[in-house]
């Protein structure tokens, strides 16, 4: 396998009190080359924390991440990240943003520009290369961020609720775009979301997480045609799996929401 999450736990110190908050508890997960794995769970289940640990932004409290068998200790360009709030550099044009990872690899300027324009064409942003991020819409920003993350040729694309801040229509369109782009780029993807539909639409495998502490509750294989398109959503298998996940997760998620609410009330 390409990426192995090996009994990873994460504790955060509690503010102003003794003890720790156990956010992740002994997570085990294997991701194969070329696979699109979705981490699905309610907010607060630690799925973004897990992604940050895999990226190398923070160390686990216990356990380790192996990338091609080598432990991950810091971020590097083999695992690039697409963030929910885009995190584009506002002082660079769209093209310069996409070129960033290429410049870091020492690609010379002309080649950099050529590659960046190719990636912008892939995410259908041709003609917007000279715009600044504040001049384009949220959906376009996220397309630019995806192009930027693909440009340095990573092994794995880590996507942290990338469509969470977008409106419903843009979100659906970008899911289809992502399916197309990922298939074209033949990339391993780890995608975090709390939307069941999004998970079923995109995933080869869905890893369902539960919270307090975050653990893996179950792993579902998605048997849908590999290239997902708008039609995928109306396939019986799509509808059935979405319904099945809803039915099995709803009571538990509702209970968790209520515990979380009670916890907040209790704390204040």
């Amino acid at each position, binding site marked *: 396998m390409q990426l192995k999450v090996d009994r990873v736990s994460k504790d955060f110190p509690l503010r102003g009190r003794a003890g720790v908050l156990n956010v992740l508890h002994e997570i085990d997960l294997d991701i194969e080359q070329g696979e699109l794995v979705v981490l699905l769970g309610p907010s607060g289940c630690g799925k973004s924390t897990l992604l940050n640990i895999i*990226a*190398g*932004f923070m160390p686990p409290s216990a356990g380790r991440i192996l990338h091609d068998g080598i432990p991950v200790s*810091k*971020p*590097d*360009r083999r*695992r*690039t*990240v697409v*963030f929910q*709030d885009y*995190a*584009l*550099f*506002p*002082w*660079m044009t769209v093209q310069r943003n996409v070129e*960033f*990872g290429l*410049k*870091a*690899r020492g690609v010379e300027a002309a080649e950099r520009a050529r590659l960046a324009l190719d990636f912008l064409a892939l995410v259908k942003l041709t003609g917007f290369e000279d715009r*600044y*991020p*504040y001049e384009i819409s949220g959906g376009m920003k996220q397309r630019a961020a995806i192009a*930027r*993350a693909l440009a*340095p040729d990573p092994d794995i694309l*880590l996507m942290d609720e990338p469509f969470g801040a977008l409106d419903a229509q843009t979100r659906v369109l970008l899911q289809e775009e992502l399916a197309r782009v990922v298939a074209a780029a033949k990339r391993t993807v780890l995608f975090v979301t709390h939307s069941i539909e999004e998970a079923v639409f995109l995933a080869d495998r869905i890893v369902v997480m539960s919270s307090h502490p975050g653990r893996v509750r179950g792993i579902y294989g998605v048997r849908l045609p590999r290239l997902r398109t708008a039609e995928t959503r109306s396939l019986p298998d799509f509808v059935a799996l979405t319904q099945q996940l809803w039915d099995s997760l709803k009571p538990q998620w509702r209970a968790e929401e209520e515990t979380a609410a009670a916890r907040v009330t209790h704390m204040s």
Partner: protein
Amino acid sequence: MRPLIQSGVCPLQKKQGIPSPIFAIPRALPAAWRASGRALRNILGFAVFLIAWEILASAGLINAVLLPAPSTLIAAAGDLMLNGTLLRHVGASIERVLVGFALAAVVGLTLGVILGWFRILSDFIKPLVEALRPIPPIAWTPLAILWFGVGNAPSYFLVFIGAVFPVFVSTYSAVRNIERTQINAALCLGATPRMLIWDVLIPGALPVIFPGLRIALGVGWMCVVAAELIAAQSGLGYMIQQSRLLLQTQYVVTGMAVIGLIGFAMNAVMTAVERSLVPWQESSKPT
């Protein structure tokens, strides 16, 4: 009873060109008018102040020796311009403020970036900086003269002392408050330390650094005058001091007015540079 909605401008009225009530009038003014109107009001405020001063002076309500009238000042400025004194002093002061400011910018930016980034190092140095910061630049004057004698060097030094802290403080807090996700984004894209500094930290901090540079130049300009009052043989401060000794208040006040005007101009230039260097800040403005 009339429904509330009728009190506003209804779209139908607009479309048919029916003149709408009071509220529509300011909106109908073109932007250019409003802008030039503002400039006019700015100048008018100035003019009223000067005219009132002139009237009070010619009515004998203001002692002409203690505070000469604007007309006397304009004549005095004319004299100083003609014999070249004013330009010589202005040149000397500006040169000093630019040298001191440049030194302060280099040191303040470097220190701000380093201490903003390396938290452990900042634990050692930040308290020291914070303890030096409240000392007014003018309190450094005796030391400046002892260390550097009389000439340009003490003025450079005092401008530096005045300007370095605003640059440092703004750079430091700018670097410290850069969004973590942007740094993470840069790191996962493989940014080298060099790229992290030049392509992420510095441009990311620029919108906060720039106001600091602008304030620093203003403080530096005040410091150069203070330094020249005591420790120089030229410059606007020196000119004011010499004129005071000769009781030529018209030259004292002329000097002060020139200091004010140049400070005003410097601020305007810095604001313009800021607008052109930080275009992406447009995003924070309402559209």
